[in-house]
């Protein structure tokens, strides 16, 4: 009897072992994101670094009341003048010299928008509308106190927030929505997609070691790196970004770090980084199944980061709203961030599918809800709970886990 059991276990172990070795050819991911060919690095994602830096200058300039104008802010978004000429709106000269821009990559992924240009244009223009509104509504009221229906400033602890008539901060709307519309969309729905990785003769070229023109990388390697760049493109150590994760930008990197700092999600940053490394190593090895498995892990994790932060800010605002004397400055700030993260849910991706976690309609309904009536001035905490539940229901976490 005992012998039988032992044999059974041995058989099972053997089966599992052989399964394992059949499906996953042994690919060694390096310790850090470092890949070379003929002694030279094959990694390149400067365009992503540039766009993260442009987005950072844009969002901070939205509060530069003394110097920014509608024209200068729109130039930052488009990196060109109104009539399409060369613009130099940035403080960082490298950004002015760059031919890249933010707008062109907003809502511009192959999978979600290549045959949905109407929606793409709508989203691109939404950012311009927020920028314009900041200069038309908030700038003239820089030195007024915000009130119901009245833009101006409001205290949030010892910080000062600048809000529109409904209590929303346009700079937060732009900043947090770019996390979805720019970084996440490009990463999950473009560069990690088989439609992009395997476009044209990419797969054949990669397997044969055929390099892109004037480059030391194959097209496929480069696409994968560009996905990586939207997350780690401004890391202190570009190849070893985990020690500083959360500190390297005010966009996706920051919030991956924040979610990783919540013990309910601890490890998500390392897991994401590992998936990037293993996927890239798999490309070198020509193991495209392994590559695609890693892409699904990244989709899952990055989508989760956005949803967790949306719920986190909704719940944080609720805590301030439930106090005997609601702290409106703190509520507005949290909900402005929540608004951006909810907007960013338009760009999340359920692994192994072509769909976002929530429908566009569900997302629009939540945003409309935040702006309804007097906007954030008369928001109710039951509404915030409902939204939190609606979001969490489509993910593998609870409202409670996201909130603390």
């Amino acid at each position, binding site marked *: 009897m005992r012998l039988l059991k032992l044999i059974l276990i041995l058989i099972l172990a053997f089966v599992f072992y052989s399964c394992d070795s059949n499906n996953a050819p042994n690919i060694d991911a390096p310790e850090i994101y470092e890949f070379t060919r003929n002694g030279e690095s094959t990694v390149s994602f400067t365009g992503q670094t540039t766009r993260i830096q442009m987005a950072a200058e844009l969002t901070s300039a939205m509060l530069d009341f003394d110097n920014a104008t509608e024209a200068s802010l729109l130039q930052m978004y488009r990196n060109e003048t109104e009539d399409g000429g060369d613009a130099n709106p940035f403080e960082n000269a490298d950004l002015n010299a760059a031919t890249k821009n933010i707008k062109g990559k907003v809502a511009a992924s192959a999978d979600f928008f290549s045959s949905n240009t109407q929606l793409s244009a709508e989203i691109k223009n939404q950012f311009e509308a927020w920028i314009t509104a900041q200069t038309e509504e908030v700038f003239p009221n*820089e*030195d007024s*106190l915000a009130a119901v229906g009245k833009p101006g*400033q*409001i*205290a949030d*602890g*010892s910080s*000062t927030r600048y809000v529109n008539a409904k209590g929303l901060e346009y700079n937060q709307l732009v900043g947090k929505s770019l996390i979805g519309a720019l970084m996440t969309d490009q990463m999950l729905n473009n560069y990690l997609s088989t439609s992009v990785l395997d476009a044209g003769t990419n797969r054949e070229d990669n397997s044969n070691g055929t390099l892109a023109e004037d480059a030391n990388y194959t097209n496929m390697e480069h696409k994968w790196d560009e996905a990586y760049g939207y997350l780690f493109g401004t890391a202190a150590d570009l190849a070893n970004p985990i020690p500083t994760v959360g500190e390297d930008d*005010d966009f996706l990197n*920051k919030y991956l770090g*924040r979610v990783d700092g919540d013990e309910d999600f601890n490890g998500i940053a390392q897991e994401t980084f590992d998936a990037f490394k293993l996927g890239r190593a798999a490309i070198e090895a020509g193991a495209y199944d392994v590559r695609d498995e890693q892409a699904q892990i990244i989709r899952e994790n990055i989508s989760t980061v956005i949803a967790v932060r949306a719920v986190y800010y909704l719940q*944080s605002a609720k805590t301030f709203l439930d*106090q*005997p*004397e609601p702290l409106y*400055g703190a509520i507005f700030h949290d909900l402005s*961030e929540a608004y951006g993260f909810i907007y960013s849910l338009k760009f999340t991706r359920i692994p192994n599918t072509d769909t976002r976690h929530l429908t566009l309609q569900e997302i629009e309904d939540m945003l409309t809800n935040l702006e309804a009536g007097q906007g954030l001035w008369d928001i109710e905490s039951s509404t915030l709970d409902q939204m939190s539940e609606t979001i969490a229901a489509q993910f593998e976490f609870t409202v409670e886990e996201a909130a603390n």
Partner: protein
Amino acid sequence: MKKIAVLTITVLFLWSCTENGPSGPDPDDFDREAILINWADNIIIPAFTHLSETTKDLHSSAQNFSSAPNQQNLEELRDSWKDAYIAFQHVAMFEMGTAMDLRYRDNLNIYPTDTTEIKDNILEGGYNLELPSLNDSQGFPALDYLLHGLDENDTELLSYYTSDANADQYLSYLVDLTARINSLTAQVLDSWSTGYRDEFVSNSNNGANSSLDMMVNDYIFYYEKHLRAGKIGIPAGVFSGTPLSSHVEAYYSQGFSKTLFNEALTASIQFFNGIHFESEVNGQGLDDYLDYLNTMKDGADLTTLINDQFQDARNKSESLDADLAAQVENDNSKMLATYDELQRNVVHMKVDMLQALNINVDYVDADGD
């Protein structure tokens, strides 16, 4: 037989449950209102009353200086500023009720002050001191700059108020600042004297919105953020990695920052122990509540631990330079050592005391974005 067995097991089970569960007095049985009365009548209202006298003096000194800006009146104004700033240390932790609505503490004591903004306000005029964005160009720190920081040399400093092309604007800004300090203080004191005291005292239940829970939270928040971090930790570079000597309180007066720290520490110790304002009388305080509950930590009495730790912080700070900025620049390790002692009591109070009193922390560390 079976029944007896079941009964025995049940009894055993219950017995072991109570053995393991919390024992001793129930927080609900303690007379919380006695603490609230002591705080309100013997600490908070007397401290605000005293402060409001000093802010009245401050404002009238500023008016005197404004009508005759000379060395003597400057000295008097500086003295009044010092008296009021010291008195303020005794109320800074009471950010509740009207003080919270007014954002009293942020209006009176955000430092480092924004000297560029101060000059803009003076030269451009038309400022609205009620705007949150001007919190850092008013209050005691802005006065510190105007009374000590415009120039190192008193003759030169006085010239801003006498011969400068904008001397009138300098003078009126000064008076506007003291007027605002005085009127905000009067508003807070007034609300305590006309109703808020009774509301505060009668809200003696437990629970997140009870006076005791809120007050204790405000107290620990103040101790952690304003005393430990603001006065010592931030200038010592604990949070930035790089020491920031210009971030000390009363930076421009060069030599007053330690006095303010000491006063604030004293106020914190007295509040914990329920010691009456400007008196030796020891009334009901958190120490009595903890003693009532027999609160022990690692075999030691928690009240004693906390009071000993306050004393350790005091002892460690004694060797600090009167000018904490100079201390940061010359030997920052002493600042860090003082910070460490202060930090130890954050743990005793925020973790152990709150657990014993069954109070939840109602604030979170700011997200920083």
